[in-house]
């Protein structure tokens, strides 16, 4: 296939991708290390930042060619008319209740026994009106509780175990490595919200701008293939994943061996994206669902 802006021979495409320095993006680091990108003539530069505030405008303005973001954020962005599109799966739930990479935890002596008991309680999530609160509500709903009565408060993941221990909140929703950290402090898991929301939920995805898709479809295609290979490799080699996490995060070695790794299927679970969209509409994050076929790859 002809590319509008072909790379000069021996001169790979310089590609910048905005990611967050967390467990979820291990495959792309691994893929880069394994040469899955350079083999496709992509010179990948991974730039970490704290979240969507920097990554999304970065991708829209062309500073990044690709970005990593959770699905709900992408749905929100799309519904507001941002010219973006998913290109590859990012990370997915393990689908195993009680053994997922994220979950809702309470103090050991808490009267809360199940998601149903969260009704009327305060739960900390890392960002309000996003994937955390919608999926936790889904857990409550599924357990037969009143999802509307859960009070959410915004607290960064790293601060949540401390807040739980001090009794500032009744429950916390965290992902690894904080699930392991909180458990080490004696916290107890009461719900696996990603599992409750949808089977094999796709949590996050890699995305790009529509402009790049139009201008350089070949690059997008190569990136997609490299990602697929990376995801598959990561899924098959958990030990290498645990090793590479230590290179771009500061998670202690003894913690990396203990954490529950997420699932990295090659394909986006379209049904689960639909579910997240429905949840977002139901919880009034947006008035009208965006056309998903414009968002999905």
């Amino acid at each position, binding site marked *: 296939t002809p590319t509008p802006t072909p790379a000069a021979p021996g001169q790979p495409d310089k590609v910048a991708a905005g990611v967050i320095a967390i467990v979820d993006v291990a495959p792309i680091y691994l893929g880069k290390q394994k040469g899955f990108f350079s083999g496709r003539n992509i010179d990948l530069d991974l730039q970490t930042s704290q979240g969507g505030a920097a990554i999304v405008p970065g991708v829209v303005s062309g500073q990044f060619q690709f970005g990593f973001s959770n699905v709900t954020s992408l749905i929100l962005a799309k519904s507001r008319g941002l010219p973006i599109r998913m290109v590859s799966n990012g990370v997915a739930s393990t689908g195993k209740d009680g053994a997922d990479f994220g979950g809702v935890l309470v103090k050991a002596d808490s009267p809360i026994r199940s998601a149903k008991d969260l009704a009327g309680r305060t739960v900390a999530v890392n960002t309000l*009106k996003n994937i955390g609160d919608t999926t936790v509500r889904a857990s409550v709903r599924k357990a037969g509780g009143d999802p509307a009565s859960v009070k959410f408060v*915004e*607290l960064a993941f790293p*601060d949540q175990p401390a807040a739980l221990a001090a009794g500032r909140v009744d429950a916390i929703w965290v992902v690894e490595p904080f699930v392991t950290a909180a458990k080490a402090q004696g916290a107890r898991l009461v719900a696996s919200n990603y599992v409750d929301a949808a089977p094999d939920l796709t949590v996050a995805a890699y995305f790009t701008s529509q402009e790049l898709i139009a201008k350089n479809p070949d690059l997008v295609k190569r990136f997609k293939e490299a990602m697929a290979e990376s995801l598959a490799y990561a899924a098959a080699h958990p030990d290498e994943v645990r090793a590479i996490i230590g290179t771009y995060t500061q998670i202690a070695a003894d913690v990396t061996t203990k954490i529950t790794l997420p699932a990295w299927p090659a394909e986006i679970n379209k049904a689960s994206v639909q579910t997240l969209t429905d949840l977002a509409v139901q919880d009034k994050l947006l008035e009208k669902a965006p056309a998903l076929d414009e968002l999905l790859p």
Partner: protein
Amino acid sequence: MKALKVIALPAVLFAGWWVLSAGSKDFYRPPLRTILVAFADTWFGARIADDVLPSLARLGAGYAVALVLGIAAGVVIGRHPAVRETVEPVLEFLRAVPPPVLVPILILVAGIGDLMKVLVIVSGCVWPILLNTVEGVRAVDGVLADTCAVYRVPPVRRMVLRAASPQIVTGARQALSIGVILMVISEMFAARSGLGFTVVQFQRGFQIPEMWSGVLLLGLIGVALAALFRLVERSVLRWYHGQRAAEKQH
């Protein structure tokens, strides 16, 4: 005439913004028109009572505490070189710590409620007041200090505070806008409502015109607070402006 001059530049800037942004298709830089529409939709309603007023109340509380703390500590530090030498490194250390990393510690100590947010505001507002008070106190005229000593006039209450007041006012004015900024920052943590929270929420939810309307509101609040401040300043520094103006009657 003066009022005209005061609004002249903002008017020009707004007009320029309006014209230049009119046809904008840029997602992050919408036309001013869109922003103003969003402004009306967003802020004329329940949000004022739910988000704006509680934020302003926290700002007021934090600012007041910072004022009292900054002036009190500033007078002590400014008057006693020994105290200054002792505490200065620690203060400079704390001053350089960014609020986003300070917040987790504050949460440990003060929880996640209003108290924490007020403390965040205090932690930022106090520095310009403190530094300016210290310097103002150190610069007090020697003859005035001697006069107080001789006539047994309580120096702090009757002299130091007044003599340093031009500089203290400078610090208080700096602190005012820093307070607004920290009001926003404090609501980025452990928040459920508030003006800053809403603005950040809009940003995360990609409601960009709404976000800009929030920024606009923050600016307007800044202007309103500055006007209020000037009223207070005018009475506190009556003598100072009088002295400086009286002899400038060209």
